[in-house]
Structures are given as structure tokens and as C-alpha cells.
């Protein structure tokens, strides 16, 4: 493969110091030009290559030489593969601009102006460091090739979980029930405070265990506040009304007893 015999430059020269050995000079067979050009990853890559190949100092680029060489490559490129050239043409424009700015005489008062090459140099260096970083990333061991992760077999069993019910689910369900119940107007949905209904269940639970409970014993006068006592009383009345419990009293002023209603 042709690109492999064209080691793209990884290191340029900085202040005359060579960071890596320079690539050998090129011989480009005409029919391989396209492949060769594709070996470059863009105008910056090509510029770095030219700087490297011609042993130029990246910090003191002779713009005339560089621009000339660059234009030669771009011409070849245009001849072979036009769609490749757009980014390269943009760079030519930039190079020519830099070159012309350097040729213009500078008035004394703006002598401190930045070297017009500075931005290009920054971009070249940024790109150079990204190229190096990319090579280092590529050299790192990766899961799937150098790194193999333990993945022994295990018999999967599914731990079943009970369905989750949120308060919102419950309320939505209740709303749906009420909405539909409104169509059955013959049915009476009695209205009672929820706390009353809760007490009804609690009293029933207690009566199942204790069979017969004295009325007064259902009230926890010491600990429950008035509100709770009232709720408890309402619950008993509701239980009686619904025929769920029976109240008995042997004689006037004798204790009242409550028990679950039994058919017998």
C-alpha cells in the first residue's frame, strides 16, 4: 500500500532541533497520486509534511517557499481529484494572504503587530499535538484486542419482583371507578371519611379476635384526641348501619357490648 511507504511526518522541527527523523524524499508514480494525496488528512497535514520534508523551522517559516510548494501540490490535486481540493484551496488563500502581509512595509507605529504567521504556526502546532495524541491513543491497549475481560457463564435466573403501585396509580384507578360508577346511578356509593373506613376495618379485625368487646373499650380516651374518638364513634355507627356488627345491652345502664353480626 502506498500510504504506508509515505510516513506522514509526526514531528516537525522546532528551532532547528529535529524531533524525529525526517521522512525520505518522495517518488510519486503519477497513477498513485490520488492515493498519495489521500494519505494526507488535510491541508495542515500537508503543510506539516512539507515543513518537515524540507527541513524548515516551524517557528520561522519561509512563506514564499512554503506557499510555492503547497500550490504545486494543490495543482496536482485539482488535476486528479477536484472534490479533495476545497479545504486545500482555502489554505492556499490563507498562505498567500500571510505572504503578502509580510511583504508589505510596516509603518513604524505598528511595528509591534503580530507576525502574520503566528496564527498559522499555532494551528500547525495544535494539529501536530493532536496527531501525536491520536497515535498514542491508538497505541493504548484496548478491550477486545489486548485487554480481555472475564465473562464466565452463569445460569441466569430472573428474580421476580412484585408489581409496583404508586399512590398516583391508586388514585387514578379510583377516579376511573368513580367515573364509571356515575353511570350506574342506581348504585349508591356511600360517603364516609377514609379515616372512618380505616377504623371500621380495625374494629372488625379486633372483633374477630376478641369476639365480644365492651363499647367503651373501643375508645382509647387517654391517648386519642377528640377528633379520633369521634372518628371511632362514627366508625361504630357505620358498622351498625351496614349491619356488620351488632350491639347488645342486657339491661338499661348496663355495659353495651359489640360483636360481629352472625346470621344465627
Amino acid at each position, binding site marked *: 500500500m502506498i500510504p504506508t511507504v509515505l510516513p506522514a511526518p509526526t514531528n516537525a522541527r522546532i528551532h532547528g532541533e529535529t524531533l524525529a527523523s525526517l521522512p525520505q524524499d518522495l517518488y510519486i508514480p503519477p497513477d498513485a497520486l490520488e492515493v498519495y494525496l489521500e494519505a494526507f488528512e488535510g491541508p495542515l497535514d500537508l503543510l506539516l509534511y512539507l515543513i518537515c520534508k524540507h527541513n524548515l523551522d516551524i517557528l520561522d517559516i519561509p512563506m514564499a517557499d512554503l506557499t510555492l510548494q503547497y500550490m504545486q501540490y494543490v495543482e496536482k490535486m485539482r488535476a486528479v481529484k477536484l472534490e479533495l481540493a476545497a479545504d486545500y484551496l482555502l489554505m492556499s488563500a490563507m498562505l498567500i494572504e500571510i505572504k503578502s502581509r509580510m511583504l508589505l512595509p510596516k509603518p513604524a507605529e505598528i511595528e509591534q503587530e503580530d507576525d502574520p504567521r503566528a496564527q498559522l504556526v499555532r494551528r500547525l502546532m495544535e494539529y501536530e499535538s493532536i496527531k501525536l495524541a491520536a497515535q498514542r491513543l491508538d497505541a493504548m491497549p484496548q478491550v477486545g484486542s489486548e485487554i*480481555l*475481560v*472475564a*465473562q*464466565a*457463564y*452463569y*445460569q*441466569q*435466573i*430472573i*428474580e*421476580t*419482583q*412484585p*408489581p*409496583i*403501585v*404508586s*399512590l398516583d*396509580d*391508586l*388514585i*387514578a*384507578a*379510583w*377516579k*376511573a*371507578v*368513580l*367515573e*364509571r*360508577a*356515575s*353511570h*350506574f*346511578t342506581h*348504585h*349508591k*356509593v*356511600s*360517603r364516609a*371519611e*377514609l*379515616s372512618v*373506613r*380505616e377504623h*371500621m*376495618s380495625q374494629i*372488625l*379485625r379486633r372483633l*374477630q379476635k376478641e369476639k365480644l368487646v365492651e363499647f367503651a373499650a373501643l375508645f382509647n380516651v387517654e391517648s386519642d384526641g377528640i377528633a379520633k374518638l369521634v372518628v371511632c364513634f362514627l366508625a361504630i355507627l357505620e358498622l351498625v348501619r*351496614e*349491619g*356488620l356488627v*351488632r350491639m347488645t345491652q342486657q339491661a338499661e345502664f348496663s355495659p353495651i357490648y359489640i360483636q*360481629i*353480626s*352472625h*346470621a344465627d
Partner: protein
Amino acid sequence: MQTEPQTIVEMKQVLEAALLTAAQPLALEDLLRLFAGRMERATLRMLLDELKSDWQTRTMELTQVASGWRFQARAEYAPFLARLNPEKPQRYSRVALETLAIIAYRQPVTRGDIENIRGVAVNPNIIRQLQEREWIDVVGQRDVPGRPSLYATTKNFLDDLNLRSLAELPPMENFTQQEIPLGL
């Protein structure tokens, strides 16, 4: 280049590393490739047997299945491993949720009550499902022919919904007053 494993121990290590990291069971042919042709089948079998017994009392067992050898976690660890990938919790059906809501808001109720309110027969499985979850229980029987069970919600239900008492369920009275003619 890597030096080839020389000792029995080193050979077993190569086998162990391969079998622990393989996504599929490895056939004898695969395992032979590990040693680049410098391994006899008989020796390989012997090594596998040794490796198997090395792991006898450990977390994995080396087993032979149809397509080859693999390490697998011993069955006793399966219940723990299952906790890593819990099945997505299911949801109750609409019928079940409505049944639960009726029991919560209108307890104590019989199946007949629930049927009256919903206008359809109650599936006994749903009642059983809620009982098994210990969210509802029977708190008595109504004193009518057939003595139907009265259902109410339990403490467990309150705990699971993070409520201290039923009174913390949002009151639906405003809603019901508008929508339903109440039989007071």
C-alpha cells in the same frame, strides 16, 4: 515475542485465562490453538481435568457442554447474581388496581360490593394476588346469606405506599360530590 508456557502450571494458567475470558464455550480445537500446535490432545484433556479439580471448591466450575468447555458460576451464586439484573417490575392490570382502590377507599367491602361498584364480576385471582402480597385481608364476614368475606387493606399496604394511615390517601370527596350522586 511471548515465550511459550513450559510447565504444567503455566499451561493451566493459559487455559484458565482463555476460559474465563471467552464469551462462548471453547472446543478442544480452540484450546489447542492457544498453544500454537505444540500441545497433544491427550495432554490438553489431562490439563483440563486438573484445572477442573483445582477449581473444585471455588466460585466457578469448569464444565463441558455440547460445544466445548466453559467456566460457569456455581448454582449457589445464581440468586445473588440475579440481583444484578432484576426483572423489570411488572405492573398490575387496570382491574387489579381498581379492585385495590375500591378496597382502600370503601373498606371493609365484600366481593359483591366491588362488583356493584365496578359493574363487572371480580376475578378471584386478583383478590388472591392482593392477599398473597399481604396488601388486603379478610376482616370479617357480612351478615347476609353466604356470609361473604369483608376485605380491608393491611398495615403492609400502608407501609409499601409509604403512608401512615388511610387518612393520608388524597381525599376524593370534592371529586365525588361533583360526579356522583351520593347516597347519604
